[in-house]
């Protein structure tokens, strides 16, 4: 399912115009990302939680050239499905 289908379906379900739906989705995602950037985790009950994790710096070795690289620390978004969703999907 791509973004177009997703918006279409959502607009049908929520009874909003497609335009309004996309604006709303944008707003939701924007506030979510805002929170994530602040280091907060976003928990959507019945779906899962999004959170930012810090990956520490590490050394990786290129298996071909054996060149060693120091990979700097970075922040990544992680998603953890809620246990109910996990069970549903299983």
């Amino acid at each position: 399912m791509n973004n177009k289908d997703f918006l279409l379906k959502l607009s049908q379900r929520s009874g909003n115009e497609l335009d309004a739906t996309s604006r709303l989705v944008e707003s939701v995602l924007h506030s979510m990302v805002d929170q994530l950037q602040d280091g907060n985790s976003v928990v959507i009950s019945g779906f899962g939680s999004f959170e930012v994790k810090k990956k520490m710096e590490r050394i990786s070795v290129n298996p071909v050239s054996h060149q060693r690289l120091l990979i700097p620390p970075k922040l990544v978004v992680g998603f953890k499905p809620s246990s109910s969703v996990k069970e549903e999907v299983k």
Partner: protein
Amino acid sequence: MNEKVSLQDLAAMVADDCKISRKKADQFIRDMFDVILEALKKEKYAKIKGLGTFKLTEVSPRVSVNVSTGERFEIQGHRKITFTPENKLKELINKPFAHFDPVILNEGVQFDDVPDDIEKDIEVELEEPITPVEEVLPLVGSVPEPSKEESIPEPEQPFTEEPVVPETAIEEEPETPEPVVEEVLVNEPIEAETKEEPVVEEPVEKSKITETKEESMLELNPEPSVKEDPVSIPPEPVTLMQKKKKTPWGWIIGILCALLIIGLIVWLLVPKKVKEEPYEIYVPEKTTVSPAPTDTVKQEMSAEVNPSQPEPVKVETTAPQTVETPKPVIPASPQSTTSSLKTNVVKETIADTLEYRITGLKATYTLKEGETLARVAANFYQNRRLWPYIAKYNKDILPNVNRVVPGMVIRVPELAPVE
């Protein structure tokens, strides 16, 4: 920081943002994630712009062991949801650390600042690859690496120096004016001799050699901006280019640059080494003497013992000429060649295809800076190859012919051909 933002908090924010009621916003968010979940269940795939991709992936069954009881049991195959954030989102989230770049580590870098748990990982990682790394290193070392570029030219220097000398010596061949004169006189031995010839000349024609070396270097490495500042300029392009490498071109250019640098180093060292060079080079010459044809050697011996020389005559001294012409032509036509020589050439050029005996003192000569016996021979006999006679005549003051000191007064013998 590190707070949990619930759906309700999110709804409040969205309500503020879009000026809708909280209830509506709450409901909308629920709907939104419901739709995603449904799509996932149905199509196993949902791509949300601005967030990322959710996927349902199959996990195949696998056997695990109960840690406490040691019992084996199978974890059943199941499906799970994976989420891959969009690149845009990744960048947004990673903004605080965006300025970091991966760093290439050199050998022997300590990991004091890296946390313990990671260091363990590193040790585990390194345990296996570390031996291959060292095995590969020599290979890598021969090819210039960006980081060790400065240390590499040094180890390479010793073995490249030697090849460089013959290179230039060979290239010099066509330029030396001497062989041309002799070619008229002696046709056969020239080829054999010219190979050794330039080597003998090297100290004498120091300036020439440096020139030719420079030329040859330019020929070898087709790169601009060498002549202006040969020492300081080349290193910079090397580093720049080698940082950009990744393609074989980068390597090739790097190797060329390394050769250029080595060549320059050798070239800079040549003036200092000149005095030592003949020493190294004459050694093989002497060794080649021993397997010389015995008949000519015997002739020499008899010839040289006869003319009442008090010193023990060594074959070596005259060998360089006679040995190289091992054909029986020598005794056959000595007269004709000398006669033609004296008639043709106005200068008293003495051919080196003949044997000579020392008849007396011709002159004394004070050696100047950078001069060799070969040059003295060239001055007095118009033939640099006759230097061994001078060496022999001066044996008492010149124990080592390869180490002549400027200011030394040497005696130049008068030579007469042996009949």
